[in-house]
């Protein structure tokens, strides 16, 4: 049957326990070296797995898509009314007016300062409430119906009520933004406080830390990743809430400008501001990613985020 036994082509080791194994071994190791050299040569020779090609595509493809969209939009002005539907060129020109007249600058100043205030209030209030709720089940159960109700309600629907109560002042806008952002913070903080790894608490007990020390040294840092996630969301959501408030009842700020230009049908100015707002939005995301990377790199490393 040996003839019919199909040959295998492999280099190196010979038949099992052939005689003269010592000789076989020596030639085997020589053959092995030869083979390894061949393999190494093969590995070197293979074309670079288009790593650079991928990097190029990653930039070119979206750029191309963008260019296509902008181009199509620009061309649309041949058929559609450019005053109404605008085009990239007109939008670009609108910036000149917006910057020169200082309109955009003052609107941004107003909006972003109110944004910062509402962010601060939302974070502080949210972390406090969230911590208490997360730590004490009783408090959580007490506040639950109210929190759930307010979260389920689309907060925009409360604006006419806010107007009745506060009128069209800056406080009303900030309050609305806080109402929008605080729940995100509360939820995330609660999750963070509750989800402290049991093992860390055991370590605290074994080391003899007091309740207050435990809270300060273990509970709070462990909750940080969650609070951080909450902060990022809070920042984005505050901007949305503020702009909504400005759209509805303001005479300053970005939302107000948008409304104004809408009544004037100045689409190019509207879109110019839209682009700026998009930039702000991206800036916020980038800012928080940067904060995370700089001060909280241990979050990703230890995977504390995924703890249940």
């Amino acid at each position, binding site marked *: 049957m040996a003839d019919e036994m199909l040959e295998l082509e492999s280099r190196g080791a010979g038949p099992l326990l052939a005689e003269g194994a010592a000789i076989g071994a020596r030639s085997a190791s020589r053959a092995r070296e030869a083979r390894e050299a061949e393999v190494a040569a093969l590995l070197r020779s293979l074309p670079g797995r288009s790593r650079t090609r991928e990097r190029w595509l990653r930039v070119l493809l979206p750029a191309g898509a963008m260019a296509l969209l902008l181009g199509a939009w620009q061309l649309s002005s041949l058929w559609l009314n450019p005053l109404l539907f605008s085009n990239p060129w007109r939008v670009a020109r609108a910036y000149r007016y917006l910057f020169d007249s200082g309109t955009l600058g003052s609107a941004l100043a107003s909006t972003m300062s109110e944004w910062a205030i509402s962010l601060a209030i939302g974070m502080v209030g949210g972390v406090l409430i969230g911590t208490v709720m997360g730590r004490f089940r009783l408090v959580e159960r007490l506040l639950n119906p109210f929190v759930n109700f307010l979260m389920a309600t689309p907060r925009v629907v409360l604006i006419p009520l806010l107007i009745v109560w506060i009128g069209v002042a800056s406080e009303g806008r900030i309050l609305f933004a806080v109402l929008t952002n605080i729940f995100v913070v509360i939820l995330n903080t609660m999750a963070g406080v509750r989800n402290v790894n049991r093992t860390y608490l055991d370590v605290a007990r074994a080391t003899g830390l007091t309740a207050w020390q435990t809270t300060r040294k273990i509970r709070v840092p462990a909750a940080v990743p969650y609070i951080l996630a909450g902060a990022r969301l809070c920042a984005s959501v505050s901007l949305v809430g503020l702009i909504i408030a400005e759209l509805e009842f303001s005479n300053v700020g970005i939302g107000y400008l948008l409304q104004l230009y809408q009544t004037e049908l100045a689409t190019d100015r509207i879109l110019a*501001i839209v682009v700026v707002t998009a930039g702000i939005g991206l800036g916020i995301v980038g800012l928080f990613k940067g904060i995370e990377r700089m001060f909280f790199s241990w979050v990703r490393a230890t995977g504390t985020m995924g703890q249940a």
Partner: protein
Amino acid sequence: MSVAGSTMVEDPGTAAADAPAARTSSLLRAWDGRGIGLVAVAVFVGLWQWYGDSYPHALYLFSTPSAVATAFGHIVASAELPRAFADSVAEEVVGFAIAAVLGIAVGLAMGSLRFVEMSLDPLVTIGIATPVVVLLPVMEDWFGFGYVARVAFITVLSVWPILLNSWIGVRNVSSTYHLVSRALTLGRRQRVWKVVLPAAAPYIFVGLRLGLAMATLGMVLAGQEVGDAGLGGLTEIFGQKGLVGALIAAILSATGLAFLLFWLLRVAEERLFPWIRETSGSR
């Protein structure tokens, strides 16, 4: 650890005397606060009613539960509320449906085809980071002051979370599932329909939930700003007229609508994919 034993065996006489007090205090300690939420709500409503009754000027600012209930009855009877409710639901459902189809389709394309993903990645990043509400005036300009603008706004607002989560879901479909499809020689259409989409379903539904929240937001906002339509419009009208009772009734109706739509989505999810809940632990 203090050891039980020394105090466990008690003199029956003293034990009987202490029993009732001990029982109440241990019951109190054992009670973990269940039901206190309801109590709190009842207290809140009671205080609210009392305040409105005692200080009539406050009526114009806060109304009272009874006034809200009466107003609710009125706007239902006058068909104002039912009509607004129906209009709102109609707009939101249409806008959300379009956003769902678009978002899932594009997300699917991005998750399956590298070329599409690379082209659209930056655009999606921008879309997710931008406060899309700024496009409301644009919708008004382009589509006029009516139904189309509102639905378009709802669609534009809610498509992003759906798209993002569908994309992630499809991308995260285990490579083993792809190998199984290949080994079983499933065609592309069969593979997408029978394997990829169901596998991505949990993510897609997360996206749909987030999208629904955005759609509700868009519905109210557009209702308030673009004409006075639906529940949003009602709040505008009642707010301007100072009818706080009716206003609060409209607000509660909006909450109700939100609950209703979320419940419907949940039902759909459980009907189509009952396995999501059970297996989400074993992923």
